[in-house]
C-alpha cells in the first residue's frame, strides 16, 4: 500500500495539470497529499516494530541486476510520514497561488512523488533515479514562482530567482555526480549482479575500497543536507523559493541528503568510517572530519543567522545549523545519536516548514517585505497575532525547548556526542545558545518592534483558514512527537538494530 504514496502523487500531478480550474487543481493537490499522509498513518498503525516491509520487487533490467524494489523500515516510514505532513501543509500554505496554479501544483506533486520514491527505494539505482526526479521540479518551482528581495522587480527579480534556482540545481547535480560515481564503483566492485540494498549491505567490500568510496558518496549526499562548506545553496535557495517550495526544500529535500548519507553511505560502506591508521591535523578518520564539519555547520549557520537582515535568510541559515545536528548525530555512530539524527530529520522538517510558512506566507505575502528592519515598525504582533503566536511556538520548538520534537532529537544527538565525541560537546552547546539568540532576535525584531505603527497596520488581510489548518497540523506534529517521542523512536530504534545496519554496529569504533 505504501507504494501508492508515489503513484498517487504522480497521478495527482497529472490531474492538477489537466484540471480546468485553479480551484479544482488546489483541491486535487490537497486530496493527493492527504491520501499520502493517510497511507503513512495507516501503515504506522499496523506497524510491527523492527519490520522490513517489502512493497514491490520486480526485475527491471535483469542484465544489469537492477530491479524495481521498494521496501520500508522504520526509518523510511518516519520520513514518509514527514513527507506526508510537509506536503499537506505546503499545499495549505500555497492556497493563494494564482500564477499558473495548475502547473505549480503539478511540479509540486512530482517533487513529492520523487521524495516518496527515494525514501521507499530499496535498490540503489532506483533510489538514484527518484533522487534525480526530485531535483528537476525544484528548479522550476524556484525559477518561476520564487520571491526576490525587496526592491527587485521585473527582470532583476527574475534573475535573482534564476540565480538561486541554478545554484541549487548545480549543487544538486554536482552532489549527484559524486553519488553516481560511487554507485558505479560499488556496482562494479560487487560483481554487477545486483543493486539491492539487501545484497550490497552484506557484500564484503574491501576496507580500502570503502575508505575512498564512503567519503565520495557521503559528501555527494551531504551537499543536499546542507553540510558546511557545501551549504551555500541552501540559504539562497530557501529564500528565493516560493513558500511551499521553501517548506519542502528545508522540510523534506534536505532530508533526502541526510537520508542518503545514512542509507547509502553509512549503511553500505560502514568500514569507511574506520580509522585511517594515521593522523592528519588531528583527524584520524572520515568520521572525525565529518563530525567537525557538522559542528562547524551548527555554529556557523547559527552565527550567520544572527546577523541577517532578511527574515527568510535567518530561517535559511537556521536550517544549515539544525541539519548540522543531523550530521553530528550520524557521526556519533551510537544508537542514541543515530536515533536522534533521524528524529531530528523529522523534527526539523516540521519546524522549518512552520517557520517558512510564517515568514513566507503569513508575513511576506501580506507585507511584501522580508527586511527585519521594515517589519519591526509594522507591529505585526498586533496586526496578525496568529502569525506571532505561531512563530513564537515554532521558535520555541526550533531552539529545542522541552515538550517539542526538537528537544528529544537534539537531546539524543547531544547524548551520543557526549558518549562518542566528548570534545565537541561544548561547541554543540555554543551552537544551541547562538541558535536561541538568533531565533529570539528575529522574533522580537519582526513581531515586537518599536516605533509608530505604519498606516497600513490595519490593512493587512486576516489569516485565512488554510493557513490556520496548516499551522495546526505542523504544530501538533511537533508537539505529539515532543511529548510522546516513543511514537517515532519505536520505529527508528529497531530499524537501526536490524541486520542492514550490522556493519555500523560492529565497527572498530565500538
Amino acid at each position: 500500500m505504501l507504494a501508492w504514496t508515489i503513484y498517487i502523487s504522480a497521478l495527482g500531478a497529472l490531474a492538477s495539470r489537466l484540471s480546468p480550474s485553479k480551484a479544482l487543481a488546489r483541491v486535487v493537490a490537497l486530496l493527493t497529499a492527504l491520501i499520502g499522509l493517510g497511507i503513512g498513518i495507516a501503515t504506522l498503525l499496523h506497524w510491527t516494530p523492527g519490520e522490513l516491509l517489502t512493497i514491490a520487487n520486480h526485475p527491471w533490467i535483469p542484465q544489469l541486476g537492477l530491479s524495481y524494489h521498494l521496501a520500508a523500515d522504520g526509518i523510511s516510514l518516519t520520513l514518509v510520514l514527514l513527507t506526508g505532513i510537509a506536503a499537506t501543509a505546503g499545499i495549505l500554505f500555497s492556497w493563494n497561488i494564482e500564477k499558473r496554479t495548475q502547473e505549480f501544483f503539478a511540479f509540486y506533486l512530482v517533487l513529492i512523488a520523487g521524495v516518496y520514491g527515494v525514501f521507499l527505494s530499496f535498490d540503489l539505482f532506483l533510489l538514484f533515479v527518484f533522487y534525480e526526479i526530485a531535483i528537476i521540479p525544484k528548479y522550476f518551482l524556484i525559477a518561476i514562482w520564487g520571491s526576490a528581495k525587496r526592491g527587485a522587480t521585473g527582470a532583476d527579480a527574475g534573475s535573482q530567482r534564476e540565480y538561486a534556482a541554478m545554484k541549487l540545481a548545480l549543487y544538486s547535480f554536482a552532489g549527484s555526480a559524486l553519488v553516481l560515481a560511487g554507485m558505479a564503483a560499488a556496482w562494479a566492485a560487487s560483481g554487477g549482479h545486483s543493486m539491492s540494498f539487501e545484497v550490497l549491505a552484506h557484500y564484503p567490500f574491501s576496507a580500502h575500497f570503502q575508505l575512498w568510496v564512503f567519503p565520495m558518496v557521503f559528501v555527494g549526499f551531504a551537499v543536499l543536507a546542507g553540510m558546511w562548506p557545501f551549504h551555500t545553496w541552501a540559504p539562497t535557495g530557501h529564500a528565493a523559493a516560493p513558500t511551499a517550495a521553501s517548506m519542502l526544500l528545508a522540510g523534506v529535500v534536505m532530508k533526502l541528503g541526510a537520508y542518503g548519507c545514512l542509507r547509502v553511505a553509512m549503511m553500505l560502506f560502514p568500514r569507511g568510517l574506520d580509522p585511517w591508521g594515521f593522523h592528519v591535523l588531528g583527524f584520524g578518520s572520515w568520521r572525525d572530519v565529518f563530525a567537525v564539519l557538522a559542528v562547524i555547520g551548527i555554529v556557523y549557520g547559527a552565527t550567520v543567522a544572527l546577523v541577517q537582515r532578511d527574515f527568510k535568510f535567518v530561517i535559511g541559515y537556521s536550517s544549515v545549523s539544525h541539519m548540522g545536528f543531523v550530521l553530528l548525530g550520524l557521526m556519533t555512530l551510537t544508537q542514541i545519536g543515530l536515533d536522534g539524527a533521524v528524529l531530528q530529520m523529522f523534527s526539523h522538517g516540521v519546524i522549518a516548514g512552520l517557520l517558512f510558512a510564517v515568514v513566507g506566507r503569513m508575513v511576506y505575502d501580506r507585507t511584501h517585505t522580508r527586511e527585519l528592519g521594515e517589519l519591526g515598525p509594522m507591529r505585526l504582533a498586533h496586526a496578525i497575532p496568529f502569525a506571532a503566536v505561531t512563530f513564537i511556538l515554532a521558535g520555541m520548538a526550533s531552539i529545542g525547548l522541552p515538550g517539542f520534537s526538537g528537544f528529544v532529537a537534539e537531546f539524543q544527538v547531544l547524548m551520543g556526542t557526549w558518549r562518542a565525541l566528548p570534545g565537541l560537546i561544548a561547541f554543540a552547546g555554543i551552537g544551541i545558545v547562538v541558535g536561541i539568540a538568533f531565533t529570539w532576535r528575529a522574533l522580537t525584531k519582526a513581531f515586537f518592534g518599536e516605533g509608530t505603527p505604519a498606516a497600513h497596520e490595519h490593512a493587512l488581510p486576516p489569516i485565512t483558514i488554510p493557513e490556520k489548518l496548516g499551522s495546526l497540523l505542523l504544530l501538533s506534529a511537533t508537539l505529539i512527537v515532543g511529548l510522546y517521542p516513543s511514537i517515532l523512536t519505536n520505529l527508528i530504534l529497531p530499524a537501526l538494530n536490524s541486520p542492514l545496519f550490522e556493519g555500523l554496529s560492529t565497527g572498530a569504533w565500538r
Partner: protein
Amino acid sequence: MITLLTLLPLVGGLLVLLLGHERALARLIAMLFGVGALVIACFFWIGYEPAYPGMQFEVIHQWAPSLGMTYHVGVDGLGVLMLVLSALVVTMSLAASWGNEKHGRLYFALVLFLECGLFGTFTALNFVHWFIYWELSLIPAFFLVRLWGGPQRARAATQFFLYTMVGSVALLLAFLALFLGTGQFDFVQLAQLGQTNQLTAALAQNLHWTGNPQTLMLLIFWGAFLGFAVKTAVIPFHTWLPLAYSEASSETTMLLTGAMSKMGVYGFLRILLPIFPQQMQQELKPLLWMAVATIVLPAFAAWAQKDLKRTFAYSSINHLGYCVLGICVAARFTGADPGMAHEKAAALTGVLLQMFSHGLTASALFWFIALLERRSGGVRGIDDFGGLRRVVPVFSGLMGIAIFASLGLPGLNGFPGEFLIFKGAFPLVPWATAVSVLGLLMTAVFLLTVIQKVFSGPVNPRWAAMPDLTVRERLVLLPVIGVMFLIGLYPQIITGMVHVTVAQWVAGVRF
C-alpha cells in the same frame, strides 16, 4: 493530586484567554484560579506528614523509557514549602495587578502560565520532566517583561532570557552526561548514587572518558552549577538581574523575585547538594567566595542606587546570597561529628526559612513600589520623595514593616532564617561568615537610608496630595503583613515541616 494542581493554572490561563475579553472578567477568572491554587497548595501543606522521610504525594508513570523519561512527581518539605510560596506570591501579584489598567487579558493569562511552570518545577522529580517546566516557565516570564516593562524592557527581557538559557544549556549537557553514565534521570535515584560515591566511577566507565574521572565530574558539576547560579543570580552571574527587575512592571518583578529566583535555590538544594556533595566539597573555596561576594557586593551596590526598584533588586541578590552561603557551608566535610551535623541542619533550615521569607518580603516590597508608582505616576527615585510618613502614614507604616522584615528585625519573618544561617555557618566556616556580616551591616545601612529619604524628612510639596491606601488595599495587605509577623514570631510553623527533609540532606552529605 500534584498533577491537578499543576494543570489548574494552565486551565485558568486558557480560560482567561478564551473568556476574558473584558478586563474585569479576565482578572476575576485569574484571581479565582490564583486563590484556588493557593487553597489547594495549603491543603498540601496540611496533608503533608512532616515526620515521614522521603517524597510524599508521589506519582510515577512510564513515559519514554528508552530516553529515561518518567513522569515522576512528589514533594518533600522543600517542595511543599515552595508550592505554598509560589501560590502565595502569584496571588499577591494578581492582587497587585488588580488595579493596574495596563495589565489586561494576556497579562493575567501569562501569569497563570508562569504559575503552572513554577508548580511543575517544584514537584517534578525526573530531570526531563522537570526541565520542561524549568524552560517553559521562562517563556511567560520573557513576555511579561518584554510587553509590560519600562523603556528598556526589550534589552532587559532579551538579556534575562539569553542569560538563563546559557545556564540551561550547560545544565542540560551536564544531565545528559549523568544519564549516559547511570541510565537515570531521576533526582532521587541520582542523589542516592551521588551520596554513595558511585557516580564518578559509573560516569568514567560509560562515557569513554580518557582523562581523570574527577575532572569530568567537576566539569559536569560546574555545568549544572551554572544553570542554577544564573537563575539565583550568584555573583558574577547576576548581571541580568538588576535591569530585568527594574524594567519589568513591579507586579512582574514580584513574580521574578518572589518565586522565580527560588527556582535557582531550589536547584541548589534538590540537585547540587544531594547529587554532587563531593564536588561541592572539593570546590568549596570558590563556592564560598562566590557566596560571600553575592552577600556583600550587592549590599554596597544597593546603597549606591538612586532608583527604588534597582535598590531592592540588588537587595534581592544579597538576600539569596545568604541561602547560597547556607547551602555551601553545609557541604563542608566534617566527618561524623554530631555537633557539626547539628550546625549544618541549622544552616539548611535557615536556608528554607530564608527562601520563604524572602519570597514573601521581596514581593511585598515590590507590591508597595507598585502602589507608590501608581500614585506618583511612575516616579520612583529615592530622592524624589520625602516626608511620605506624614502624607500617607498607613502606606509608610506598612511598607516600613516590610522593609524591617527585609532587614532582619527580630519578630519579623526575615530574622529567624538569617539567624539560623549565621548560627550554623559560623562554626562551620568562620571566615566566610565573618565577612558576610559586612553584608548584613550594609543591608541595614541602605534600607534605613531608604526609610530616611522616602518616609522622613521634609514633605516634598509635589506629593502633598498623595492619597493613602484605600480600605480595600489595606484589607489585602494586612494578611501579608500578618504572615510576616506569624513567621517571625512562630517560625516552627515552617521549621516543623522541614526538619526531616533537612536531616536527610545532612545525612546525605556526611559521606
